[in-house]
């Protein structure tokens, strides 16, 4: 695992619990979530249409798309409710010195 693929997102207190922030890196958008048991990251755009999930609602381990209420599991990326049917890509996250990093391939 090469070190340089870990990208710093921000400090842990930049995300409230059961919430998310959008993180743009190069030409890609990610969502980084704070759940009760830690931090997680997924692609930032819904797999149904080109819509940012940052405006969606986090409920337990799920993110609900703000456009048509497609639902994804944040930890596995699995599409759980139509019209979303393609899974969301997820990314490893680590916390180091109160800073959040995500590993982008």
């Amino acid at each position, binding site marked *: 695992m090469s070190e340089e693929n870990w990208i710093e997102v921000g400090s842990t207190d930049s995300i409230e619990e059961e919430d998310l922030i959008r993180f743009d890196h190069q030409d890609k958008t990610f969502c980084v979530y704070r759940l009760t048991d830690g931090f997680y990251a997924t692609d930032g755009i819904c797999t149904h249409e080109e819509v940012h999930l940052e*405006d969606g609602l986090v409920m337990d381990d799920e993110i609900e798309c*703000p456009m048509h209420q497609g639902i994804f599991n944040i930890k596995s990326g699995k599409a759980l409710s139509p*019209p979303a049917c393609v899974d969301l890509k997820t990314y490893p996250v680590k916390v180091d010195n109160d800073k959040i990093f995500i590993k982008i391939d």
Partner: protein
Amino acid sequence: MKNNIIILGGGQAAIYAAIEIRKNDTESNIKILGEESILPYERPPLSKDFLLDKKHEEDLFFHSSDVLINENIDFDNVSINKVDFENKKLFTKNDNVYSYDILLISTGSENKKLCLDDNLNNDFYYLRNLEEAKIIKEIVLNKNQITIIGGGFIGLEIASSLSQLQKKVTVIEIGNQLMGRIIPKQIADLVQNTHIEHGNEIILNKQIDKIIKKNDIYEILLNDNSLIETDFVIAGIGSTPSIKLFENTNLKLDNGIVTNQFCETSIKDVYAAGDVSNFYHPLYERNMRLESYQHAQNHGICAGKNISGVKTEYTSIPWMWSDQFNLNLQLTGICDDYEEIIERGSEINNGVIYFFLKNKKIRGACGLGILGKVGRDIRITTKLIEKNTIVDRQILSDQNQKLNKLIPKL
């Protein structure tokens, strides 16, 4: 017990019901009868991404034929034209007979037709199914001036798509605002402005007196004597539940098939779900009929549960969306029974929502924003309606305050 379960109508409610029945009942035969020659598919893209060529036929199916085979769900491509509830039989035109023990009716709804000039009936186009969407998509390639009769959701979505295909579009609406009175006038006006900014012409408050065909051009004469020349006419003037088949039976009908909160009709062992059903909603304590994606799904699932012996009340809060250009409109709850309206936000970039309140509780809300901007607040609103919460008006009207503050903590 092993039953012959037949689902009449092969759309969204049908497929969700079938899958749900199979979850609870591995023995019964489940057969969907559908007059369209393809497996159940999503209709929302027909007026949007399908016309825009961003989604194709293969992207629309809820499930593949492999899934149906695995689940042991049959699909017969037939049109039923007679029902005998007494003897529990359905007949096709050629007198093929299907016998059932339990029947779910999910025949959906159909477009109202223009009655202007019988000689022109084949000249006007409508959009309800994939076949019609394919035809419209093909024909518009060679047309430039397109008129859409009716400024409802589907008409406006088609207008948005055709405008994005660089067509000159005119929408003629008989009422004094777009999308009917159920949508707050302010939101209808914002949608109208967006259409106009993209070059669509919107004509309100006008009736069509007649349409004359001259070679390949149609002249549409309005009741103020103005004339519109167009080379293609699409009508989206509303829909009615598909119930003709049941008109001379003793199935109780009233703006659709009347069902209770368990999707049961007036006849034993006959259920109805989706667009065709006028169902009782326990939270609103009244009957309602909805034409929406999410309702077809949830109502189908609820019917599936009840048919397979898992008695379940249907309590989903109504929710639907419409996408036009980069706007996303969402409706939750009911917006026609209120004492007070509260506005949140005023610009579509951040989202605008109108809440409809009765007894200090939200009954429904309508929001409009760029892409999903109102989605989260509308979703939270749905929860507030579900929980019958007394809400703080000040938080509702202040976009800087998060709405989830209003959700009561357990």
